[in-house]
Every structure is written in C-alpha cells, then in structure tokens.
C-alpha cells in the first residue's frame, strides 16, 4: 500500500500503471491483480488507509484532556509533521483524492472513504462548541476554513513557494485558525 501510495503521489493517478506498482513492490502483475482487481479499487483503499492513519492521530489528540486551543495547535502540528515526514500522504489527499473525484465517485460517495478522519474533525469541532470555546456554525464553513488552510499551506510548500519549513508556521497558523473559529 505504501509503495503504491508513493507512486500515485509522485506520478499522478493516470500516469501510474499497475505494472509500475507491481515492479515497485517486486511482485508479478498477475499477483498484483489478485490483491486489487483494478487501479480504482487500489486508489480507494489508499485513501481509506490515509484517512485511518490521520484519524488515529486526531483521535489521540481528541482524547487528551486539554483545551480546544491546545487541540487546535496539536492538530496543525501533526498535520504539518505528516506533510513533512510522509509527504506522499498529504500529496495523495490533495493531488489524487481531491483532484480526481471521478475515480472515487462510485465507491467513495460523500465522505465514506475519509470517514475516520472527518469523524475526528467533527468531534474536535463539537467538543469545542460544547466547551464554549468555539462558535457554533455550519460544519462545512468551519471544516473548509481549517482543512482548506492547512491543505493550502502544504500545497504551497509542495510548489516550493513557502520560504520556511512547515513546522515554523505552526504557531501562527494555529493562532489564526483558533481566532477565526472561537466565540
């Protein structure tokens, strides 16, 4: 899965073939098809894999007995850390999952394939509102502000536009997000 993920993220979905993936995994093409019937199915499994990975990281933060302000910073920090240490994950999310929606239309309708990640974001928002720190608003307004901002920064980094490393932006960005979402 990791090998396929790295290939998709670097070459793009359509430029990557099943034989490419099989070679990178030192596996025969025939055997590869035993595991995944098509490239689309493999793509779906990869996004579920990323969602589960990020979801688990966010769950660990959500379960901590800390304020929403501290959680906000922790989420920004872990997102950028993943973007720096496992760039293929965030790249896949931004450049394959969000950019090639036609691949995911049938079996990843709505947010099914990113459910674990989105569920944790929802819990972060809900608990923030319940604790009185965050302003109650439409989920997607808040989700777009938070994740769009983070995704945008990672994208700029990927395009070599950001002058500094991502982790150097954690304080400013978590401050901005918290200020924008708080009551």
């Amino acid at each position, binding site marked *: 899965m990791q090998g396929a993920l790295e290939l998709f993220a670097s070459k793009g979905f359509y430029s990557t073939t099943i034989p490419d993936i099989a070679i990178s995994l030192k596996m025969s093409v025939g055997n590869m098809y035993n595991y995944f019937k098509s490239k689309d199915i493999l793509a779906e499994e990869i996004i579920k894999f990323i969602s589960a990975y990020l979801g688990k990281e966010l*769950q660990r933060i959500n379960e901590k007995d800390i304020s929403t302000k501290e959680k906000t910073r922790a989420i920004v920090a872990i997102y950028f850390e993943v973007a720096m240490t496992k760039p293929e994950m965030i790249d896949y999310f931004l450049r394959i999952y969000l950019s090639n929606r036609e691949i995911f239309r049938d079996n990843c309708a709505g947010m*099914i394939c990113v459910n674990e990640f989105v*569920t944790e974001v*929802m*819990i972060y928002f*809900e608990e923030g509102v319940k604790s009185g720190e965050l302003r*109650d*608003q*439409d989920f997607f307004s808040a989700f777009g502000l938070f994740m769009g901002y983070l995704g945008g920064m990672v994208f700029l980094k990927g395009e070599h536009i950001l002058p500094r490393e991502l982790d150097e932006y954690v304080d400013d960005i978590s401050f901005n997000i918290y200020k924008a979402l708080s009551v």
Partner: protein
Amino acid sequence: MKILWLSAITCNGNAHSFLNYPYLERFLDDFEFIYHPIIDSLYTIEEVISTNIECDILILEGAISFEFNKIDIPIFNIIERYSKIVRKIVTVGSCATFGGIFRDGEYKDTTGLHFNKDIKLTRFANLYKNSISISGCPVHPEILVNTLYAIKSTMNIELDEFLRPKEFFAYTVHNGCTRNEYFEYKVDNHIFGKKEGCMFYEHGCQAPYTNGSCNKILWNEVNSKTRAGVPCMGCTQPDFPKQNLFETKKNMGIPQHLPLGVNKRTYLTLAGITKAFNIKRLEEDIF
C-alpha cells in the same frame, strides 16, 4: 380495589388524560375512587382530608412543596397519613414524579414525590419501596391502567432507576416509530404534520433518547406524536420540559443529544456512511 386520586400542584392534565382510557367503564367495575377530582366519587375532598378513609392505592398527581396545602392541610401531611393506609403509591405524570414545569412556579422547593429532576430525594425515602412512577405529560392512560391492574393482581413489577415500570419505560419512544427508515438514512426533510421525514436531525425529536412506549401503545389506540408529524418532546424524562422543543440543538452540526447509549464516535462514523446513500425515494413526498 379502592383508589385515592390526590391532586397537588397540577394542571389536572393527567386526570383528564385518564378519562381518555377507552375502557373506562370496565375499569370502574374493578376499581373504585374514594376520591377523584373529576369522576363522581364516594367521598368529598374535605372528608378525605379530615379523616382517614380506607383505600388501597394513593395516586398522586402534580408536584409537591412544603408550602402547598389542600384545605389548609399541608400536602406533605396528607401524603404521610395515606401512605400508612395504602399498599402502593403511584405518581402520575412528570410533575408528581420529577417536579416538571411547576419547579419554576411560585411554591418554594417544588419537586416530585421522590425526585427533583433526576436527583433522588430523601424526604419520603421510607415510601420508596411502595412507590411506582408513571411519568409523562400527561400520563398515558393505558400505561396507568395496566399498572393499576398489575398492582391489583399483585404481580411483581420491575422498575427502573426512577421507579418506572420497565415494561413500559425500558424502551425508547423511537421504538415503533413509523419514521425509522428516514432516521436510518438521515433524511429530515420533514414539514410539521407530514408523513415523510425523520424529525430527530432538525426538528427537535427526542424519541431516540426518551424512555416510553408511545409508539408501541398508541394514544387513544390510534396515534402518537411522531406518527402525527410532531416531534417527541421527551415528556417522560426527568429534565422535561426543556426549551426550544421544535428545534434540534446541535454543536457544529452534531446533535447535542445522541440516541440512548450510542457512542459519539461510532454514531458519527455510521452517520457519515448512511448520509452517502442519498436515497431519492425518501427525499420525495409520497403523496
């Protein structure tokens, strides 16, 4: 079997609801009221309060307060006296059980007989073992009558933590709701009074976390709030009445109160999946 129906701080809604029991004549062949505020009774309220009259069941309707008197006699004294005579004490309605809306009234320290909302009281702790609560606003007549027959036949009545018969209160009002398919697939396109749509997500329906049998034992043998197109208002619960009963309180789109016993993380995971079904048949009006 003789019953004293004693009204305390009440709107008398339970006494009226009881009159809707469809087989009242048959009931009155088996039970006799030494006093009931609406039905012709053997004694007047003055006689009941001034002397001790033999009876088997004390039904208390309405909340109580040390300030509240009936014909100049504190309600507390009347309850104490008759509790020594009767076999069982039944609180009917949510005011007699939990204090209800009259907790916000003028009488000081207004509560139910054994509970102040969900807090257990010690004032009448000695009566606890002989008490049964039938909460609701108003009481469901069939549930009251069935409980009275169970007492008459000396059945063992299993009770929940608020002394409510599990037979009727171990379920949620959601159980038996005809809108369950809309609930399952998260379709709340409801307009009040219409047959379509679940009312949990937007319209304040409390059925998934309210204990009761309204959708199993129908009102007047015909209907229930949710079947008629009005949300369940949670009238059997200790915290009834809440505010904004026609609107689902949400935090960033997530209902504040989830179905009874459901874990939030699991609920959100499942909800995300069911929402993706996008079933056209359920989005459209049937008629």
